[in-house]
């Protein structure tokens, strides 16, 4: 069965501290992995994506994520968080067919990030 697990429901970090949000997936085929961010009352914005190549991918807003196939993980990191990073973060997985993956994408339940001043 295809699934995405984000084990941390809510994380609070101090402004300027480093951040790591965990994501584990279960997927039968080669996965296409995403991290999205959702601010209150807003839609989802793509932070970064991975489907092949270098397992460390860079995204917008200073975020990066590392794909570890052996651990079925795709954790999101940021070296120094800003108050504006407070939001809900979603990890997602979809099928990678090699040329098109506009298909069913499955989301995790999200991790809410709060920033301590």
């Amino acid at each position, binding site marked *: 069965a295809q699934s995405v697990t984000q084990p941390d429901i809510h994380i609070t970090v101090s402004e300027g501290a480093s951040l790591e949000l965990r994501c584990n997936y279960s997927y039968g085929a080669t996965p296409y992995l995403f991290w999205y961010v959702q601010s209150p009352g807003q*839609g989802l914005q*793509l932070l970064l994506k991975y489907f092949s190549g270098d397992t460390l991918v860079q995204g917008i807003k200073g975020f990066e994520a590392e794909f570890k196939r052996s651990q079925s993980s795709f954790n999101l990191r940021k070296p120094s968080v800003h108050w504006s990073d407070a939001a809900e973060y979603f990890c997602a997985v979809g099928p*990678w067919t090699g*040329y098109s*993956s506009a*298909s*069913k*994408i499955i*989301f995790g339940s999200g991790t809410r990030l709060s920033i301590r001043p």
Partner: protein
Amino acid sequence: DAGVTQSPTHLIKTRGQQVTLRCSPKSGHDTVSWYQQALGQGPQFIFQYYEEEERQRGNFPDRFSGHQFPNYSSELNVNALLLGDSALYLCASSLLQGTGELFFGEGSRLTVL
């Protein structure tokens, strides 16, 4: 370049009623996916439309139906509303022959009383 637009932004219905939500995809996109996001949950895939046909469907009852028009815009219809249908409904557009990235609208917040 307009992004994904959804209407209405908020609406209130009563149990048993029917609702139609609308979505205009990002310019140049040909595929529309609909997601339901209950409070405190991640988005759940409802279905996806391409070339005016439903390509894939998630685990939602037949009360949920959709349509895609020749201009790629889409509608989500929900019949016989239940209290549990209260959620944020998100539309996402993408290119079938693309990188798979979904571009989301800001959603339609449905409250069923």
